[in-house]
């Protein structure tokens, strides 16, 4: 039987505010335990939450970026459950009236096809603290530095049909929130966390199967692996005549499997009710205008512009807009060298390889966009060949100076002086009588290919400094004589 997966994702993004959502404690990562936990974060009686304006602005920006209906009046609610890293006994979240209503994003599938994934809603809430289960004389340690860090929980429609689509969607959301600067995107530090709802059904069936919720997935690779594992597990259970139990399962990356959480679930009985400590959040036009005024051009818009303005392929444009820093780097390089395609090839080729090898992000590249633009300009004005340019690039990467300095210092300037080139050409022709005879005996349409051998010999003689186009022309003239 053919099976089809139905997948929806809940993504928790930590918002990049300086202070917490309801208190003036710092949200900086990595501080000593409990040094960033105020009385409010500890859930002490007599404290009252006051909402962080920036967190609201960030949610408004996200709404605009995914073309969502904005919740002009949203309400905070208490989600009640007991766990020691949640000192109040409830999490302040949003339930019936979230700040971000239905929206959508587009993902690019493998075949180049575009698929629209619905975003059901996104709501503001507070993060919980951390429980440390190392042995403290049989007790659990609690660090509340993270308690109260603002989260935007982004809930998708169950629109994805494979693990690959789920990853493409997660990456898209990641691209948007980091592009907008509302989330730092640091997955190791838990700034971007995914839960997946997964069910399977026979292909063509309309009715949904029973779903399980996968928690604890903190990398894109694990999103794909966890979902694939869970799909196979569910199909096996059903094919063996069993039934899927609705439950929460944890993904264990070390063993590459999912397993049920041991804690008995109270069937999601969170008893939500409006939080009387907080008034409804009302967004007027001025607020929305203020929050979105400085929004950058969005990744999809920029991709479209790169395609139309620079004549890039859809693939190149989407690679170059993977992040805002990447797109900025590309556009600056083009503005210096003036050749869109050459800049694209170098950034996705030479530069990407070097960054990858050194495990650097493009923001940390030792060769600046302007520097690379200068180098490419020297290819375009025939000062150096593309091959020599790679040598110059390596020297620039190693900190030996800008393109012109390196070319000068290493004497790499291309030889375009016709008489010098003619000498090399004559020498090569004289040294290879057999190849010359073959060439002259060949059909004219084959000669074009055969000339490559001679060009290679001349380039070798010149140590790569001869201008290949000129050499090619000279050779053809002399060989045809």
């Amino acid at each position, binding site marked *: 039987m053919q099976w089809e997966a139905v997948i929806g994702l809940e993504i928790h993004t930590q918002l990049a505010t300086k202070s917490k959502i309801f208190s003036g404690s710092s949200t900086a990562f990595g501080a000593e335990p409990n040094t960033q936990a105020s009385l409010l974060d500890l859930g002490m009686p007599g404290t009252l939450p006051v909402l962080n304006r920036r967190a609201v602005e960030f949610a408004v920006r996200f709404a605009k970026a995914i073309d969502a209906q904005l919740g002009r009046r949203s309400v905070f609610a208490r989600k009640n459950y007991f766990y020691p890293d949640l000192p109040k006994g409830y999490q302040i979240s949003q339930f019936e009236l979230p700040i971000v209503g239905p929206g959508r994003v587009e993902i690019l599938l493998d075949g180049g096809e575009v698929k629209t994934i619905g975003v059901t809603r996104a709501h503001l809430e507070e993060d919980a603290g951390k429980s440390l289960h190392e042995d403290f*004389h049989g007790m659990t340690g609690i660090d509340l530095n993270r308690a109260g860090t603002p989260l935007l929980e982004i809930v998708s429609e169950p629109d994805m049909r494979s693990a690959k689509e789920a990853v493409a969607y997660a990456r898209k959301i990641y691209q948007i929130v980091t592009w907008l600067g509302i989330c730092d995107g640091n997955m190791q530090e838990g700034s971007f966390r995914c839960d997946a709802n997964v069910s399977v059904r026979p292909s063509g069936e309309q009715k949904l199967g029973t779903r399980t919720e996968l928690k604890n997935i903190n990398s894109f690779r694990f999103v794909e692996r966890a979902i694939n594992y869970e799909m196979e597990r569910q199909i096996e259970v059903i094919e063996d005549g069993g039934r899927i139990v609705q439950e929460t399962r944890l993904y264990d990356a070390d063993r590459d499997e999912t397993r049920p959480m041991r804690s008995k679930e109270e069937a999601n009985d969170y008893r939500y009710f409006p939080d009387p400590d907080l008034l409804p959040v009302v967004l007027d036009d001025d607020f929305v205008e203020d929050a979105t005024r400085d929004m950058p051009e969005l990744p999809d818009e920029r991709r479209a512009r790169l395609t139309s303005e620079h004549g890039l392929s859809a693939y190149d444009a989407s690679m170059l807009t993977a992040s805002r820093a990447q797109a900025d780097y590309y556009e600056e390089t083009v503005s210096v060298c003036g050749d869109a395609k050459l800049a694209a090839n170098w950034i996705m080729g030479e530069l990407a390889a070097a960054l990858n090898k050194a495990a650097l992000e493009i923001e940390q590249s030792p060769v600046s966009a302007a520097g690379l633009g200068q180098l490419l300009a020297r290819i375009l004005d025939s000062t150096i060949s593309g091959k020599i340019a790679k040598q110059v690039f390596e020297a620039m990467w190693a900190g030996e100076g800008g393109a012109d300095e390196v070319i000068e210092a290493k004497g790499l300037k291309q030889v375009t002086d016709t008489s010098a080139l003619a000498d090399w050409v004559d020498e090569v022709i004289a040294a290879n009588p057999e190849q010359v005879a073959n060439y002259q005996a060949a059909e004219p349409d084959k000669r074009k290919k055969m000339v490559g051998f001679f060009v290679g010999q001349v380039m070798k003689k010149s140590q790569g400094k001869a201008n290949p186009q000129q050499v090619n022309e000279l050779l053809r003239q002399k060989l045809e004589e």
Partner: protein
Amino acid sequence: MSLSSDDIHKIAHLARLAVDEAEIAPLQRDLSNILGLVEQMQAVDTSQVEPMAHPLEMPQRLRPDEVTETNQRERYLRNAPAAENGLFLVPKVIE
């Protein structure tokens, strides 16, 4: 609407309240009466009424995103029955 004794046990458990068996029957009666009152109110047609989230007719005030709190850990930890290495200690949570 009347609640069963199982409902009472469940509600008590969700709220982490220890309830004596002897209290179950009176609680069952009292809570059922309260729900009966709510049921009476549900007879009113509220389809044209916007649900009230808060009795105060004003929007939430917002504060600027600034760090205003300083580290008071040692003082706060003194309130805790058990603490070590800057952590609050609680009975082991088995996950």
